């Protein structure tokens, strides 16, 4: 008898344990299980005591994630360069992206601070010492952006919205990849991305731009150089880009003219076939939800025959 009861209790408790694990793993909305502890991209364990109500975003990508998750109302402070979506205009500014103002941050009484690559580490350490909940995000590729969005959803108690957003992003990425991933080398146009001219400054391997070019079905002619190289014009002529994409920002509206005027590139395929395009630098460099827009736009530029004409230029 005794033995039988023990067996039942253990069976039931195992059952409860299993279902708890299942619920935990599937992430279904046990949203408000604060406090929660997560490991951020600086490998720091950060505990968030309660669902954040006053969030500061120190980088444009983080701001875009927060707004996309419907957390715009809770954002109390953003950096000077956060300019998307348009509601950011009304938000309090905490200083430059690379130089946020500590006092301003403290004044805003945040219960969550989202930092990112490019924010000064000294400031992050200071805020940590002052025991603010500060999460550092530093995505290295598009998959990592998606997991960052999941993280932000989790720490803000918005898992559901995050799941919806990431699913939509994944589907849109898949829609591009299903066309481009099987492309053979000779169906992939050679692309030159221009960050600055002159001298010519481009985006090499390890950058989001490089990843976007590849995923959009192109070959980055600077793909064999790491980082953000200043590139030799001779090499550009030798590699003969078929598409030239120029990073466009409102602050530098005439950059495209500077490239178009470069007569030494006249004989490249891109010039001959007038394949000189622009893309918004904000969407190709920010590690937020709009990276998918960047991918779709790149795909249209590089493969108009598959994705329809690009509207950018």
């Amino acid at each position, binding site marked *: 008898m005794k033995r039988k009861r023990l067996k039942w209790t253990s069976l039931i408790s195992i059952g409860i344990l299993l279902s708890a694990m299942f619920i935990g793993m599937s992430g279904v909305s046990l949203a408000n299980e604060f406090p929660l502890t997560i490991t951020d991209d600086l490998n720091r364990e950060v505990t968030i005591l309660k669902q954040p109500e006053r969030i500061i975003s120190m980088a444009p990508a983080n701001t875009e994630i927060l707004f996309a998750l419907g957390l715009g109302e809770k954002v109390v402070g953003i950096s000077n360069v956060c300019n998307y979506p348009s509601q950011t205009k009304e938000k309090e500014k905490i200083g430059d992206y690379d130089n946020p103002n500590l006092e301003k941050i403290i004044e805003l009484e945040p219960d969550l601070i989202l930092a990112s690559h490019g924010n000064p580490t000294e400031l992050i350490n200071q805020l940590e010492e002052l025991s603010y909940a500060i999460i550092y995000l530093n995505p290295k590729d598009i998959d990592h952006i998606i997991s960052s969005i999941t993280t932000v959803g989790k720490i803000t108690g918005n898992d559901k919205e995050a799941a919806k957003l990431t699913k939509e992003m994944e589907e849109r990425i898949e829609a591009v990849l299903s066309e481009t991933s099987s492309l053979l080398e000779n169906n992939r146009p050679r692309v030159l991305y221009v960050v600055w001219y002159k001298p010519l400054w481009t985006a090499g391997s390890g950058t989001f731009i490089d990843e976007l070019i590849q995923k959009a079905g192109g070959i980055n002619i600077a793909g064999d150089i790491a980082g953000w190289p200043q590139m030799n014009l001779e090499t550009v002529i030798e590699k003969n880009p078929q598409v030239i994409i120029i990073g466009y920002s409102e*602050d530098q509206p005439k950059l495209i003219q*500077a490239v178009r005027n470069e007569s030494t590139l006249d004989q490249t395929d891109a010039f001959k076939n007038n394949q000189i395009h622009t893309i918004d630098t904000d969407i190709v460099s920010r590690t937020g939800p709009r990276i998918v827009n960047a991918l779709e736009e790149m795909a249209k530029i590089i493969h108009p025959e598959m994705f329809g004409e690009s509207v950018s230029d």
Partner: protein
Amino acid sequence: MKRWIGWLIVLMILLLAISFLSLMIGPVRIPLTKSISLLAQKLCFWKSYPLENAPAAVILFKIRIPRLILGMVVGAALSSAGVILQGMFRNPLVEPYTLGISGGAAAAVGLVIVAGLSGTLTQIIPLAGFAGAIGAAILVYFIASSGGRLTIPTLLLTGVIVSFLSSSLIMLLMSLAKGEELHGIMFWIMGNLQETNLSFIITISLIILIGIFISFLFARDLNALVLGEEEATHLGIEVERTKKILFILASLLTGVAVSASGVIGFVGLMIPHLIRGVVDADHRFLLPASALLGASFLVGADLIARTIISPRELPVGVITGIIGGIIFIYIIRKRKVEFRW
């Protein structure tokens, strides 16, 4: 005299050799025979050149040759300006950089970039650089000559102050600039010979050659000024007028050079000292010899800048600084250079 001519011939051969190397070597390998046959054909056919659009020809004629010419004239201009300024100031540390001329150019370019004006005009950056250089020179000149007479210590001090002023202005602009703009300014401050507009290069080459020629006419006056202003007056030189002309000449040479290449330090400082120390300090020799060696030095430095980590490029100002510095320290240690005037 004979010794001078011998040295000038040596320096000319050196320049020719380095120029040839820099045409033949680059990030893209063009076989020697091909380069030579392309050159020969270009010389034969000239305007009706058949291979105009072949990549190797584009690289050779539209990239390497313009860049070579630019390197030569900028190197020559900077070292000539160095000779003139060091001579008239009788000070071993003077060069366009220390007088605020380069700094003024950099500040003006920074302003144009941060204001988002780069690209509005084809040559707006060079124009801004030139305006900044000449503007700084005029500023230095007027502050220093407010008493009616241009005394050298005042001029020097004013130059250093204007130089500090403009570097603070650059820092201010850089801290306000965004990512791309910041790099744009940095590229320019560190010097760069990536210029392909041939008519622009020819224009500045002509100005520089004329400038160097005129400065050569003042070689005897410079020799006299080195002895001291009083001595120069005794030798029948109109000191005030000569100083003005020389200062304008040096500013013009520097302004034109920086406008095309950005700020390239050390050439103007080092090359004149080298020639003076190793061969002779007579300006009739010093001027052409420095121009030749400066040209070789900058072309050589640029060869390294564009090939050492190709297809990346390094800013040439970094190379001139490092290599020039090392050579200079070595020579001073060997005591081959005495700072004689």
